[in-house]
């Protein structure tokens, strides 16, 4: 035990010497639920451009939003990045965001940011239905996401209902069709769907034939295709289009916190990632999300957004709390 404690002391002294705390005075702290690799690339490029160091805390959408809410004005975070907009809305409703610089907002099309201007879209992903071509013919595909609640789909489709991604889709359904229709659809989901841990597992479930198809976000499929393709080689993509809730485009958000100690640097970082250089990093990276800012064309592997017939939804109206309440009532959670 004594030797153990000595070793601890020795390590403690080395640790304090590496502690990155000093960087915080000069640089900024980013709470990021976005892909770790992408956030790191943005941080590295921003440092090179501006000389401002960025420290990253990793997490997931809602858990990090909860953390920021608990931290309140004492939050060490300067910038918050998410994968979906409901977590941004949570922080915004608590009044913890500072308005985003107008020039930054101007770089992002109006439909991809909330009316409040307290945060902005930084990337987008689309909802898709991947199906196993051995198990479903093209003519038997559902016309709408709502058809998946019908009896003929019992036990035949998968999703990851516990994740923020799926809850964003349901929040769009709620916004577009109201709570009665959403509750009915969720009851169908409980009956019919196989629940997976995440989108990737749901996609792989369809690929190995455990289910015929899965409702997921696009980048899981394109990411796997660009890699080994071993989890998606039997799959094809079906887009619902026609403004269907299942054609929902989810906005990843970025915002600057009111409590930031270094608001100028924080605004500069947000401007950088929505600017030409940041969006190009997004386009050329491995995440296969859509670049949406500064007129940058998305990754060539992805079909253009304007061909997908997605429904128009104000991202600031997407409500995570109501969705979870409905999902809890339906016994999905």
């Amino acid at each position, binding site marked *: 035990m004594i030797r153990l404690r000595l070793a601890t002391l020795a390590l403690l002294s080395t640790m304090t010497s590496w502690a990155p705390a000093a960087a915080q005075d000069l640089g900024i702290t980013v709470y990021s639920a976005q892909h770790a690799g992408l956030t790191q690339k943005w941080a590295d490029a921003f440092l090179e451009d501006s000389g401002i160091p960025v420290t990253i805390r990793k997490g997931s959408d809602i858990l990090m939003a909860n953390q920021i809410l608990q931290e309140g004005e004492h939050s*060490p975070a300067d910038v918050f990045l998410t994968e979906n907009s409901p977590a941004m809305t949570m922080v915004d409703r608590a009044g913890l965001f500072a308005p985003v610089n107008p020039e930054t907002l101007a770089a992002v099309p109006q439909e991809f940011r909330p009316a409040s201007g307290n945060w902005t879209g930084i990337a987008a992903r689309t909802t898709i239905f991947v199906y196993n071509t051995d198990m479903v013919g093209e003519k038997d595909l559902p016309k709408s996401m709502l058809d998946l609640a019908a009896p003929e789909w019992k036990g035949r489709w998968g999703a990851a209902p516990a994740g923020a991604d799926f809850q964003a889709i349901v929040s769009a359904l709620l916004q577009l069709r109201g709570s009665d229709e959403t509750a009915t659809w969720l009851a169908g989901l409980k009956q019919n769907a196989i629940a997976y841990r995440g989108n990737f597992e749901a996609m792989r479930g369809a690929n190995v034939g455990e289910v015929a198809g899965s409702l997921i976000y696009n980048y899981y499929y394109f990411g796997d295709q660009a890699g080994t393709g071993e989890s998606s080689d039997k799959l094809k993509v079906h887009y619902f289009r026609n403004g269907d809730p299942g054609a929902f485009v989810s906005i990843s958000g970025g915002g600057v916190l009111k409590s930031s100690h270094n608001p100028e640097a924080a605004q500069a970082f947000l401007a950088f990632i929505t600017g030409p250089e940041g969006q190009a990093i997004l386009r050329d990276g491995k995440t296969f999300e859509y670049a949406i800012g500064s007129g940058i064309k998305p990754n060539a592997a992805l079909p253009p957004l304007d061909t997908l017939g997605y429904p128009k939804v104000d991202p600031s109206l997407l409500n995570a709390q109501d969705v979870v309440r409905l999902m809890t009532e339906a016994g999905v959670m």
Partner: protein
Amino acid sequence: MNRPLPPLPTAIALPGVKRHRRRGSSPALVAAALVVAGLALIPVGFVLWVLSQSSWETAASLVFRPRVGELVVATLLLQALAVPACIVLSLAFAWLTERTDLPLRWLWRALGVAPLAVPAFVQAYAWDGTFPLLRGLWPAVLVSVLAYFPLVYLPIVTQLRRLDPALEDVAATLGERPAQVFFTVVLPQLRLAICGGGLLIALHLLSEYGLYVLVRYDTLTVAIVNQFQAVYDGPAANLMGVVLFALTLLLLLLDKWSRGNRRYARVGAGVARPAPRFRLGRTWPFWLLVPLVTTALAVGLPLVTVVRWFWIGGSEAWHGAALTSATLQTAFYALLGAASVTLAALPIAWMSARAPGRLQSFIESIHYYTGALPGSIVALALVAITVRFALPLYQTVAAVIAAYALLFLPRAIIAIRSRLGQVPVELQQAAIALGKPPLTAAFIITLRLAAPGIAAGAALVAMGITTELTATLMLSPIGTDTLATEFWARTAEFDHVGAAPFALAMIILSVPLCVILHRQAMGVSGQ
């Protein structure tokens, strides 16, 4: 230790003599235990506080709904199948390695501990990667048993090696057959070991998240974590937390009942004769299958999977700098955490072994309730408290260590208390009678004899810390990357190849901890 003591009967079963045992406690000790328990009350209080914000009707409609029923049944079913399976497998395994002439016993003995070096979520990840269709209750039971059975195998081996065969000889001369001897003489003496290990496994299963998400088996904890990741201060999540408390209470009652109040200790000069080995004869290849198949599944499969990913990635996937930094940071947290948590566990473990009573069992149970909570509730509770009342501590090493203490105190307490319980009180009393001050006697006799148990507790805590995810993500100083957080970040992006070096490093870091546990089980005493 070398002072000659009068020869006493070799094994005595003493009924609980309360007044006698109370002497083991002191006000300072109780105060220390209370302080630690106060810390452990934070998450419990957080859950109840959030709950008090919602009306009784909301609460009732959230608890008494079919989904919660499903989850409770699923959780209990898993416990009822996995815990006995772990015990039976460990008994068979331990009997083969300790009491038979099975070939290569030393190897199997070491491999019986080795699964602990494979973190449960790496274990599940490997199984899920190899058999993507492994789903539901039976796979959940299988992977739970493979990941956790050493927690009961270890104490059984320890106890088996300490038994004095004289007692079995007595039973045999009274005409009992070997099988009868095992069930009437050996098994009752293994009772404390089985109960301690079984409780530890049950608590692990109760709070385990990663494993069950991967095999797609929804337990109460999985549902709580999902709720927590979905809403802010959701009453639904906290209510399920209360249901979790109820299950913990059930486990503790079961443990108390099955532990009984008998105490077995061997007091006497000299060493017990090694027990005779049962000759397996020509059936040995059949018996060899038990350890062979178990270790092939529990160690072989995950190791092969991780090494295969590692191989595919080649040297490019090494992430040298990130790997080195994550390994050092993980080692730092594991060592500091193990030392602090063990220290915090000592007072209550001491009370538990030496001065059991209502206060002790109340304090001890607080730790089990907290330990059964998923990491995300504990971490969020600490965020809420430190931000409001101890801001300078927020996102410091101290806050993470506090979270580790809340999560991992039960394993330290159980490891230490079982070893302390085996140190005869009489030795310390003899030392006091011979003129040593009580505190000195406690240190030089009892703690020294219990040192292997303390080391084992520290090793178990260090293993838990090496693989902890949620609390580390939320509470560590910014810029901290441990092996677990790096592994998680990469697997979340399906970068198996990139995640492999981190998984391998976690396994390698856990090997010395396994060695500590192995040595303690083999009866290397704390001289």
